């Protein structure tokens, strides 16, 4: 536990000691800020609707969600493996799981910070007299953080596969996109695959359908333990995979 906390602090500091972290934050803040004002304008001043677009529901949100976690995590294992730092960490008195957990938490924290800019917009709107629904925003934010955790764990596992950060990012982005394709396929399963509505494949797809879980809870202002668990379970699965892949580094 202490080991994971130490690694977490180091990784988070590492993200902010390199330009990458600042650049990602800057770009996200800028783009999200501009788009929020555009959303607000188009929606005729509906603050809550515009806020929910910044926490899901817009294409940009999913672009950031698919691209940023791989960029954050791509170096975490692959680069350390090639510089020998992984050898240092794996011979330090911390478990492999603690190393992965620390890194995963650091990347997720960074994403959480990035999504938290929505609170700035809500605060601004509040100051200007509109009444944002803070509860709904908080629930949506939690959903974003949970989903980020899942994407970060995918990125970490991809990073543990290869020694080249760019390949790791590429693999992770592909997995992320495939994951987001599931809801699309599921929604159109009747026409695409000619499946009856009670087919087992649809049930299976439902178990990996992110959007279904988000729209059932976070996006409607509900924090539901079942949906929280759904994200935690998938995050843990990829986290476990990452731990195992890091372990195979010892003999690769």
């Amino acid at each position, binding site marked *: 536990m202490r080991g994971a906390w130490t690694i977490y602090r180091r990784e988070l500091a590492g993200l902010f000691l390199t330009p990458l972290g600042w650049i990602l934050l800057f770009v996200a803040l800028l783009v999200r800020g501009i788009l929020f004002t555009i959303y607000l304008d188009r929606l005729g001043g509906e603050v809550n609707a515009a806020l929910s677009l910044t926490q899901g529901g817009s294409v940009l949100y999913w672009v950031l969600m698919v691209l940023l976690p791989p960029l954050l995590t791509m170096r975490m294992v692959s680069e350390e493996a090639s510089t*020998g*730092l992984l050898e240092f960490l794996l011979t330090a008195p911390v478990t492999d799981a603690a190393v992965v957990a620390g890194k995963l938490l650091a990347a997720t924290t960074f994403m959480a910070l990035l999504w938290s800019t929505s609170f700035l917009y809500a605060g601004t709107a509040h100051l200007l007299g509109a009444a944002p629904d803070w509860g709904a925003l908080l629930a949506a934010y939690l959903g974003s953080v949970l989903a980020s955790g899942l994407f970060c764990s995918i990125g970490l596992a991809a990073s543990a596969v290869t020694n080249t950060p760019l390949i790791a990012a590429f693999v992770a982005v592909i997995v992320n996109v495939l994951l987001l394709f599931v809801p699309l396929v599921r929604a159109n399963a009747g026409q695409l695959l000619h499946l009856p509505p009670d087919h087992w494949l649809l049930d299976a797809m439902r178990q990996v359908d992110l959007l279904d879980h988000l729209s059932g809870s976070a996006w409607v202002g509900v924090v539901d333990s079942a949906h929280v668990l759904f994200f935690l379970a998938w995050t843990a699965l990829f986290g476990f995979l990452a731990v195992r892949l890091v372990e195979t580094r010892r003999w690769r």
Partner: protein
Amino acid sequence: MITASHLTRRFGAFTAVDDVSFHLDAGEVVGFLGPNGAGKTTTLRMLTGYLPATSGGVEIAGLDVLRQSLAVRRRIGYLPEAVPLYREHRVDEMLTFQARLHGLGRGEARRRIGAVLDRVGMASRARALVGKLSKGQRQRVGLAVALLPEPDVLILDEPTSGLDPLQRIEVRKLIGELARERTVLISSHILPEIEAVCPRVLVVVRGRVVADGTPAQLVRQLGQPSHVRLEAVVPDPAEAVRLLGTLEGVRAVADRGRLGIHHQFDVQTDVDLREDVGAVAASRGWALRELSWCQPTLEELFARLALELGPDRAAGADPAPAAPAPPVADALAASGPLQLDVSGPSAVPPEPAAPEPVGPESAPPRRVYNLNPFDQGETRDLGRPKAVDDGGPGGEQGGGAAAGERPS
């Protein structure tokens, strides 16, 4: 403190480490020596628990490195060859990170960081960015990181690579100091390092330990015997061999053949007979070029082991290692032209042998010979030295004349 038993590591079909067993007592300093790719790093990685062994096991302080991995990791300081450090952090931040990993308290960590930076001579660079440090400085920071938890066992993989000679001496001194408190295992392919620091040496070649002992022991058991080397202008080598052989304490005299006008002999003996040999040379008027006392070095031994000339002989522990050298020398000496030409330089002795006190002004004209056949045409006969310093203005012509002067 460290016990490796039948360690084997295969990578696919390639066996990097093959049935290596050794034991280090607490407080021992052992050098792990081998050519590149001998399996040094692989063995060290298995000792630290980073790499699981294909078969065999390692115990450190009585703990199995794989089963009680965390307990072992708390006890070892490991400096990998690549010196892994976070480049974007400052030196003291890196050390703080290591202190936290080892669960040191804040005050304790601060005290130790100061102490350890002093020790490696980096106290003034505590706030420097690791990425801006030179290779040698980074090496020292790496050493500081390994030392910080005050481990019982220190495993250093090529700790002096990339250091300048001065830093090397410092690191050597540092390791010497550490040796008093800890068990240290150092790998290196640089012999003088190991010889200077380690009382005990393990030599690995192609994944096997081929020798284990103190450098002196290894040299005595496996090395060539010591000898006095004499290089001089000798009129009759056979006579010289006979004459040198009569000196007290000489086991054998090997004629190593001609080098230009000089003849080389190895007078094999256990005691330093330079004065006696020198006296013989003086009395006979041989013009000396070299007279030296050669003791076998770990270097020679290592080269032979690495080339795998040694192990079979080592196994027999045959105390007559003088044998292999002479045949070559004999063959050289026996080869016709060289032998015949020896009469050539016999006329030379008068001038260079002169041992009489010579004042700086009254120095007799010294003749310098150019023995390089390549700047004199390929037909040049090595047996006929060519003077290069008595030519006057027409250097080239004079040289030719000088060569012509030599009686043949």
